[in-house]
């Protein structure tokens, strides 16, 4: 079950400034647990953001993105009320998604 995410989108000049926080352990596969066993690789591989249904950002990640990943991006020509979605999928097939509308400045 995917953990909750947070998103905020706000107009800044001609751009919508979008900030997203995802809850994910982002395990590198190199960390050992208290029993000294390697914790398996577990990380978000792909993140896709849309603006009014059109893909604006298609990201591919490695395990080197920090845990509980932060992502910021900007969309030119967006307007208050526009719909933004962000979804991710990790290397185990787990998924998360969130949506919001762009707020006025």
């Amino acid at each position, binding site marked *: 079950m995917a953990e909750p995410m947070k998103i905020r989108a706000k107009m800044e000049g001609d*751009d919508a400034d979008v*900030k997203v926080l995802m809850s994910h352990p*982002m395990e*590198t596969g*190199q960390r050992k647990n208290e029993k000294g066993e390697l914790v398996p690789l577990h990380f978000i*591989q*792909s993140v896709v*953001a849309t*603006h009014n*249904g*059109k*893909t*604006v*950002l*298609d*990201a*591919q*990640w*490695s*395990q*080197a*993105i*920090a*845990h509980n*990943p*932060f*992502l*910021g*991006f*900007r*969309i*030119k*020509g*967006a307007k208050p009320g526009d719909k933004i979605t962000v979804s991710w*999928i*990790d*290397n*185990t*097939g787990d998924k998360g998604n969130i949506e919001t509308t762009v707020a006025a400045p």
Partner: protein
Amino acid sequence: MNQMRRTLLKLSAAALAVGFGLLKTGQALAATWNKAGFESKATSDALKALGVSGAQPSKDIVISAPDIAENGAQVPVTVTSKIPNTQSISILADKNPFPLTSSFDFANGAEGYVSTKLKMGQSSNVIVVVKADGRFFTASKEVKVTIGGCGG
């Protein structure tokens, strides 16, 4: 509608791949993930896997990252490309076990801008490669990582 068609095509391609046992189920939707690039242990190999050749150094790429990172597990990095028609930004931590950390493809009005946080194993150059109009540009910034850093 075109987007929906692309998604459907991607999905059906992924479904086919699963059907033929080429992919494990979990990887089906991440079919475009650049396995070769992300599993490269050297920056040069990762760049090759990204198809980067002859990248020109550019002052129009602004990398905002701390000079000294007290916590290598959370290194904030923001990249702004002022190069017209920026299509993608890739971020590499040169001395990480697997240097390629991320690639961001932009479309439909997204600015050539991205902000994230990286894990860095040790002090290293953060290398950024921008693709714009099919050409490659690069910039880098050194980040010193304080081992076991408790600040001050």
